[in-house]
């Protein structure tokens, strides 16, 4: 076995590793901003997040594996730092102009192919060097544990800085520029012993240019449209474009609303309100600024509570709205509340006659929580007797494809779990109506109500209703929805956003729709049992054949996979329970990173490294996953998911240090463990949140995750003599 890195007596990992800290800070900030910019370009659903995260981890892992076989010099890390700091502005610029590069219009739908391509190319230039820097730093600045600890601490600091300081005050590019310039300065001052002024100056010039070109580059990337406003809010990247007298507000490249757009405004509220024309208390969740509030206020007795998550969605368009529209927002019958709609519904003591959900379709886990059985039940509980609940999702007027049929059937099935009466209005958007009282989609009834009230409408009118609600269309939609496969969308089994992803894939004609549909036909247990069985067989084979390289890699890859899978699933769980994930993501990620850093510290403080330690840690991981599975059905206080995240981080950090010392103690192997950890994490990100969580549900997934860890534990217990070299190092920090 190779000679171990020199150990500073008494060093328990607390002595600062500046390179490790800068690396962690830079990597965490870049990762967050990359995800935000990808969302801004390509809509931020879980499939996109999963792909970008997987590409990021994949290249980080490859960078580490590549660097583990390279000689290291003190110059190497700083050269790579400057390299990545010079490449990064170009990478983010390419991402911003990805649509013109692909020949796509702003707002045009994109298939997964181009997204994957951009994720792979950009992550290569950004995270391959960062993965390599970790290894170079560990070799020169070692021991490994110390670098790992300070890298984790840097990542936690980067997360805090990004979310609490940069995002609330600056745009993505401005925040990136500050981080980039500050890191360039830190590298120049602390790490670059040669004082390469040219590299430093070039980096400063590049980041300064990057900072000032933020707004002009956005305007350019939105051509041929006239971009009149932009803001990076806490919840996403907002853009306002103007076409003649009309403005359109976008949130992460998705059209939120246009104004004026009477067709949408009328459709979103009137089908529900015409069921109860005498309604008094109305709750509108989202989407009021496009004209819906004004439409509700046309009913003489209504008093509206309008809940909107992001104040900027309303504020940005205010100067462009008509005086009549702005007057609606000053109407004493309107109460505007800035809050998460689901949280609001939970805590409000009010009871409503009509609740209108006016949000985008459930294309992400964040939005899906408004379309689950649990949310529908809550809405029902807040409705007066015979009250009406309503929402709209995209549909098709003339033909319902099987993919859409599935999605609409799940929506209907879920609503029926909470309401005895459900009706659907056909059209390019399907309007769902649910109540414990009677409902009607008879054009005669609705027209009579319109006439009685004397409402001035243009699109939902007695003249147009007979065509839209023709018996053939009603019957066609009803029979399609009834004939679709049964399914219920719930908080822990959020199947709707999967079917929405299938619809997305169908439109872009990519292969993903076929793959996703194929996966959806496999029974959930098989979807998990087959990979688990394959994993168990793999462990048996490598244990039997004594493939030491593979045997050493397995525990770290499994740990990386478990912690990443656990992190993603806890995020989804947290989101479904408490919402506002994007506001609190800093707290959540920092909790995990703090756990990682403290776990690494605890690992470094161990006097000696023994096999039984790793066995115990693996068993602890198994118990942790199992415990999580047990509390999943409950609704614990918010601190509980955070505590689980901390523990995942802590065990992951400790595990990393111990297993590195046991399996990759040699200096020439530094980085192998890190590489396998990241590749395991990459495997967990691929498709977990986008495919497995919605298809299989969290409870079953946690169970199988526990089983996989039990296999890993057995492997460590039974294969100990095969894995561990006889002469263990006495110390390795």
């Amino acid at each position: 076995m190779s000679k171990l890195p020199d150990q500073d007596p008494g060093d328990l990992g607390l002595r600062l590793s500046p390179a490790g800290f800068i690396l962690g800070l830079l990597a965490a900030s870049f990762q967050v901003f990359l995800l935000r910019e990808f969302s801004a370009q390509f809509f931020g659903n879980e499939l996109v997040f999963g792909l970008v995260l997987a590409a990021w981890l994949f290249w980080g892992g490859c960078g580490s594996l590549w660097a583990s076989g390279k000689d290291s010099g003190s110059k190497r890390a700083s050269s790579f730092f400057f390299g990545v700091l010079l490449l990064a502005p170009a990478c983010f610029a390419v991402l911003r102009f990805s649509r013109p590069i692909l020949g796509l219009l702003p707002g045009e739908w994109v298939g997964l192919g181009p997204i994957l391509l951009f994720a792979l190319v950009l992550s290569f230039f950004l995270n391959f060097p960062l993965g390599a820097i970790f290894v170079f730093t560990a070799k020169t600045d070692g021991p490994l544990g110390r670098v790992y600890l300070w890298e984790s601490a840097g990542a936690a600091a980067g997360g805090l800085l990004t979310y609490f300081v940069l995002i609330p005050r600056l745009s993505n590019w401005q925040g990136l520029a500050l981080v980039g310039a500050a890191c360039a300065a830190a590298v120049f001052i602390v790490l670059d012993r040669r004082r390469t002024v040219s590299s430093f100056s070039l980096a400063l010039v590049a980041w300064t240019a990057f900072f000032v070109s933020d707004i002009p580059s956005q305007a350019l990337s939105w051509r041929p449209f006239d971009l009149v406003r932009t803001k990076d809010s806490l919840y996403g990247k907002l853009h306002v474009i103007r076409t003649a007298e009309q403005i359109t507000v976008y949130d992460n490249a998705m059209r939120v609303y246009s104004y004026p757009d009477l067709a949408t405004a009328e459709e979103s509220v009137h089908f529900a309100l015409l069921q109860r024309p005498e309604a008094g208390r109305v709750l509108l969740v989202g989407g009021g600024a496009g004209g819906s509030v004004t439409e509700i206020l046309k009913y003489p007795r209504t008093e509206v509570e309008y809940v909107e998550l992001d104040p900027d969605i309303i504020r940005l368009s205010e100067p462009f709205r008509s005086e009549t529209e702005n007057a609606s927002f000053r109407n004493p019958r309107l109460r505007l509340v800035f809050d998460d709609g689901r949280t609001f519904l939970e805590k409000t003591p009010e009871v409503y006659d009509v609740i209108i959900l006016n949000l985008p379709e459930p294309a992400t886990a964040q939005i899906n929580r408004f379309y689950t059985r649990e949310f529908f039940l809550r809405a029902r509980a807040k409705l007066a007797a015979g009250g009406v609940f309503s929402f709209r999702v995209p549909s098709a007027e003339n033909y319902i494809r099987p993919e859409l049929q599935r999605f609409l059937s799940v929506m209907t099935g879920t609503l029926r779990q909470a309401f005895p009466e459900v009706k659907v209005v056909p059209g390019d958007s399907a309007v769902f109506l649910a109540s414990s009282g009677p409902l009607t989609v008879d054009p005669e009834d609705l027209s009579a109500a319109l006439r009685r009230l004397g409402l001035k409408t243009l699109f939902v009118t007695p003249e147009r209703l007979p065509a839209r609600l023709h018996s053939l269309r009603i019957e066609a939609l009803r029979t399609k929805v009834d004939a679709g496969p049964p399914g219920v969308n719930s908080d822990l089994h959020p199947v709707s956003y999967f079917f929405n992803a299938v619809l997305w894939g169908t439109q872009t004609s990519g292969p993903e729709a076929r793959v996703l549909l194929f996966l959806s036909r496999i029974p959930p247990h098989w979807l998990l049992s087959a990979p688990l069985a394959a994993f168990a067989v793999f462990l048996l084979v490598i244990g039997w054949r004594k493939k030491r390289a593979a045997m050493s890699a397995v525990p770290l890859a499994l740990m990386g996979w478990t912690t990443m899978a656990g992190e993603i699933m806890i995020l989804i769980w947290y989101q479904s329970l408490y919402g506002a994930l994007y506001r609190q993501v800093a707290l959540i990620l920092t909790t995990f990173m703090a756990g990682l850093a403290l776990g690494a510290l605890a690992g470094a403080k161990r006097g000696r490294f023994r096999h039984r330690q790793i066995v115990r840690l693996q068993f602890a991981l198994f118990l942790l996953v199992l415990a999580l599975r047990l509390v999943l059905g409950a609704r614990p206080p918010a601190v509980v998911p955070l505590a689980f995240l901390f523990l995942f981080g802590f065990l992951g950090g400790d595990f990393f240090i111990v297993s590195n010392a046991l399996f990759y103690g040699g200096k020439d192997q530094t980085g192998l463990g890190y590489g396998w950890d990241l590749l395991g994490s990459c495997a967990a990100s691929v498709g977990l949140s986008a495919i497995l969580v919605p298809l299989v549900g969290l409870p079953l997934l946690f169970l199988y995750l526990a089983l996989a860890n039990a296999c890993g534990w057995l492997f460590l217990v039974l294969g100990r003599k095969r894995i561990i070299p006889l002469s263990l190092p006495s110390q390795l920090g």
Partner: protein
Amino acid sequence: MSMNRRTFVRTAGAAGAVLGADIGPALRRLYAFGQTAELSHVEARYYKRLPDREVECDLCPRRCRLGDKERGYCGVRQNDGGTYYTLVYGKACSVNVDPIEKKPFYHVLPGTDALSIATAGCNVHCKFCQNWEISQARPEQVQAFDLPPKAVADTAAKYRCPTIAYTYSEPTVFYEYMYDTSVEARRQGIRSVVVSGGHINPEPLEALIKVVAAIKIDLKAFNEDFYKTYVRGELKPVLEAVKIIAKSGTWLEIVYLVIPTLNDSVEDIRKMSRWILKDVGPDVPVHFTRFHPMYLIKNLPPTPISTLEKLRQAALEEGIRFVYTGNIPGHEGENTYCPQCRKMVIERRGYEIVRNDVRQGTCPSCRTRIPGIWA
């Protein structure tokens, strides 16, 4: 057209089902999840046999040249051993009753309903397609009725529709089905109207216009670049088709879907209007309709109303006599005005006819002829 015994039995059975008192049971059978109708195997009418069992389709300007077992660009026509077949004959996947104003036809039997049918397939690929679910699908990917021509005509009669509209997807690709249905419907006194993008060759078009009452052409833009980028088609053959229809005397209306920043240039509209005046005539109704975000560009903004007003004004100034705005209910651009005395002769509100003063095809005030099919 050849029909084997099996096809005959299936067709007769299906027709019987549809002819029954209610279309509901047929719908329920159709929409049973995952069920798709069998593909048809009816020989196409416009193609050339080539050596080595190849064929060349003569139906549309693409003129697909296909080897054995290959399908055309439209996805609904296949070469089987040197004979070219349509796979969607009698396979309607969408059947609805719509106001004829929705197509839109403003000068054809105002205030009546049209039985609207479509099969899968299209010979272009518009990024803004309103019916991409069927137009961009192959026939085996959709659930379809077995609805032969006679059953279509009978269904129209059952729902008291004086017209059958071939619409939603591109009817050119189900040409034989459309043609035979039109002939059958005419026997029953029902007219046929076609809603098409106009990508059709002169020979089949000239045959078709003899059996249908009216054709609406979707002119997607008046420049080739737009057709190339957003339609994957060509403008020139569409203009040729428009000229042929106008010359034939079959009623023609033109629709121009205005997409903000992509095809809303006033200059293009003036050029288009001048071309219409010269090659088609001033009486062809031209509709500028409002784009509502769809399909691949569903995140684009809808068309501002002022843009439609500007384009309508430009076309009127150039001398087109009947220019409309579409998808803006209650707008003055929905109404028909006498080109002579400027009196409103048809008042519309959305798809509803509020008032129709046209008497025997003329303005009640000045007796100027208002062209169209009024009875």
